């Protein structure tokens, strides 16, 4: 049995409205690569941030090399020999590799930086772990893969024996992943302990010795890789049973196509394809769920469908009319509305009053304005009061800023506004994120009500349970593509989980 590097016991960490870690046990040995697997929001990064001193746990105990420790800050973690490579690199672009590594850790020779000594040590590390980088190159000139190597080097240079890699492959090309794996193996062979955070099954299978699976803040289990199969890990990640808290009613479908997407390709901020050649249709009386791990193109797909991001290629039809590249306002006129992912950043203007928010985007409509120069305030207030009643919004008055409302009530304001437009197609992006149970049920009931009334709802969610509970059909998005669409009756949670994680897909 190799020496224990880290043991974490009963780690609990709460954030406002969420329990990120609900009593997690975790152990890590020297000479092993330990995979930390789970969906987004499962608590992987939080757990490791606690180990690295970025967060303080609400309760629980951490041991490093068998000693109980309190890691108050990253500098304590570094002194304990813990290094972390974040998803977003923490490098100064204008400085060279060597200078970046020296920041906060400058070896001196007299009053000067001991460049020679540093270079020698760096070169030794480069040699030992196959991390090829030029110490004199400026970081801004390096590729993403090289920058990541600099981060790893930085950690090793500071004496890290326990290395945390937070989704290190997310930004890498295939070749770079190969090189990274070589480095990780070299680290393991040198007796270092490596934590590899990921939500990609095949990578966990390839590189890890043991895997710990987290789901919704809880630990599901730890398995040696020799006993793991992709199927088993997928099942651990997504669970088996679906908890039904609401039930869709049977409806009579007319087979009308309300939304058609043909060969849609959308680029992200960096100009790389985030949605690749996606096609699907949405019909009346239907909820189409789009499942997938966050970051597989859902955000860009939604933005392209709702007029917030111009698509690169492909066509969109709403109610039979071509709607490719139309603005949010024009789409709303065609009957397509959007419940955005982040109500606070996108869906609402927090300092504005409830009344002002309830007409956001509709403020030029006939009932609320006479041209650009007259606002019909009386009507807006009356409409807002009606919305408060029909959507059971708890608010002292329609004049309070929405920032004073709870998350659930804020979401009701968004729903009241968007559903008040009498839409035919509703694009709901993570509509229950961050809500309490009552808030979630309210949203679910509203979505089902829309379906009964004949609307088409595109429900994009990271929560597979939510999708399986509500959707008539389930599509899975992986790496910007829709890898399959299943009718709900035929959708098997386990198979969907595998598809979400890039496993093989049987159905189509």
């Amino acid at each position, binding site marked *: 049995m190799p020496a224990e590097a880290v043991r974490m016991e009963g780690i609990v960490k709460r*954030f*406002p409205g969420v329990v*990120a870690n609900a009593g997690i046990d975790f152990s890590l040995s020297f000479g092993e690569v330990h995979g930390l697997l789970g969906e987004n*929001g499962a*608590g992987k*990064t*939080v757990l490791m*941030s606690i180990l690295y001193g970025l967060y303080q746990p609400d309760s629980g105990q951490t041991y490093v090399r068998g000693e109980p420790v309190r890691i108050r800050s990253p500098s304590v973690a570094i002194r304990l020999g813990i290094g972390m490579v974040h998803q977003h690199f923490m490098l100064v672009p204008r400085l060279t590799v060597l200078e970046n590594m020296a920041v906060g850790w400058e070896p001196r020779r007299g009053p000067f930086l001991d460049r020679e000594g540093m270079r020698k040590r760096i070169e030794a590390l480069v040699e030992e772990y196959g991390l090829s980088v030029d110490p004199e190159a400026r970081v801004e000139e390096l590729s993403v893969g090289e920058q990541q190597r600099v981060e790893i080097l930085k950690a090793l240079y500071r004496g890290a024996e326990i290395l945390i890699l937070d989704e290190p492959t997310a930004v890498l090309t295939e070749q770079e992943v190969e090189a990274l794996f070589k480095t990780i193996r070299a680290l393991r062979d040198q007796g270092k302990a490596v934590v590899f955070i990921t939500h990609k099954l095949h990578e966990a299978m390839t590189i890890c010795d043991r895997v710990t699976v987290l789901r919704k803040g809880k630990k599901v289990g730890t398995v040696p890789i020799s006993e793991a199969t992709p199927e088993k890990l997928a099942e651990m990640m997504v669970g088996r049973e679906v908890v039904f808290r609401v039930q869709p009613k049977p409806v009579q479908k007319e087979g009308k196509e309300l939304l058609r997407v043909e060969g849609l390709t959308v680029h992200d901020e960096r100009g790389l394809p985030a949605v690749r050649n996606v096609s699907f249709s949405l019909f009346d009386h239907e909820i189409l769920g789009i499942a997938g791990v966050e970051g597989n193109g859902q955000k860009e797909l939604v933005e392209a469908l*709702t*007029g*917030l991001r111009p698509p690169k290629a492909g066509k969109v039809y709403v109610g039979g009319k071509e709607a490719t590249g139309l*603005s*949010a*306002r*024009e789409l*709303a006129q065609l009957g397509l509305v*959007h419940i*955005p992912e982040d109500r606070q*950043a*996108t*869906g*609402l*203007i*927090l*300092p*504005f009053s409830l009344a*002002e928010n309830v007409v*956001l*985007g509709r*403020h*030029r409509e006939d009932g*609320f*304005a006479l*041209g*650009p*120069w*007259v*606002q019909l*305030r009386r009507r807006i207030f009356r409409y807002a009061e009606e919305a408060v009643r029909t959507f059971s919004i708890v608010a002292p008055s329609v004049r309070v800023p929405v920032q004073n409302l709870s998350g659930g009530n804020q979401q009701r304001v968004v729903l009241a506004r968007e559903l008040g437009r009498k839409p035919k197609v509703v694009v709901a992006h993570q509509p229950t994120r961050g809500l309490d149970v009552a808030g979630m049920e309210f949203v679910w009931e509203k979505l089902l009500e829309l379906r009964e009334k004949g609307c088409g709802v595109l429900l994009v969610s990271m929560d597979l349970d939510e999708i399986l509970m509500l959707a008539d059909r389930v599509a899975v998005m992986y790496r910007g593509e829709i890898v399959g669409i299943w009718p709900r009756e035929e959708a098997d949670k386990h198979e969907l989980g595998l598809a979400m994680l890039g496993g093989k897909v049987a159905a189509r």
Partner: protein
Amino acid sequence: MRLARELGLVFASLALAFGVGALVAQLSGLSPSAVYRELVRGAFGDQYRFFQTLTQATPIIFTSLSFLIAFRAGLFNIGAEGQLYMGAFFGAWAGFTFVLPPYLHTVVALLVGALVGAVWGFIPGWLRARRGTNEFVSTMMLSYVAIYFTSWLVSPRGPYHGTQWANQTVRILSSAELPRFVRGMQLHWGLAIAGLLSLLLWYFLFRTPRGYEMRAVGQNPRAAQYAGIDVPRTMILALTLAGALAGLGGAAEVLGTHRRFIEFFSPGYGWDGIAGGLIARAHPLAVIPAAILIGALRAGGMGMDRAGVAPADFASVLQGIVIFFVVAPELFRLFRRIRRERRVLVHSQP
């Protein structure tokens, strides 16, 4: 409730500022009581002085409104000074070039000033909206362009050098004059226009769909875009209106107070507008008392100097202290908001 809190905050800040001012006076070997007595007397002592204060406040109301409307759209118009100069010169130019009946001539000259000011606001607005150029920098730089361009126009080598003894234009025609309230005093109808504009701007921001859109863009551009508001166009509109307001202020100043364009005539009204807008918490109606406060400090400072209780420089020090203390809470709030947003970012990371 909110109003009471805001007012309380402003008066508390004022009290604090005058307290610190007294301390500084004491340490400088001046008598605080004499300084404040002369300050108040200089600003409000009699009708003439009070009118002087209002005369000083008039252009500051315009520039404060200019700063405020951009601020409401989330933009910083640091260049009201330059927009004021452009409006002032071209207002005067219309005043001595066109031949029109009285009053109509005034109105036309004011509109010319507003229009040229608007152009001076449109340029940074367009650059910001379409090219992403930081408006903070561009408005400030264009300000210097305007100040020195107009100075050149009236210099001995420039085309509008009107008098031998000073760098200024010829006098405007009497038909273009903005009438004064009382014979022999500089206070002119520009103050009434400024007051009316404050009201109009309030109506615009809080009672029209366009104003609503502007505030939406200022508070959350992403949500505004999602709501189908044309964010770049709104930004351009805000800075154009900001330029028009400052330009109109410059034209009114020239047509009402000086009756000609004089190089470097402004003692910094454009910069005072930033303070005025912030003291007023970006509320159009609160701009009037805020501008009067700044005008009173200016006029009172001159009174202090004349009475010999303190040099004019001390008046500037006092102005600085007052403005700092009254603006500071707003700045703190700004910082707090930034910090809170950063915290939210950290929390949303897991």
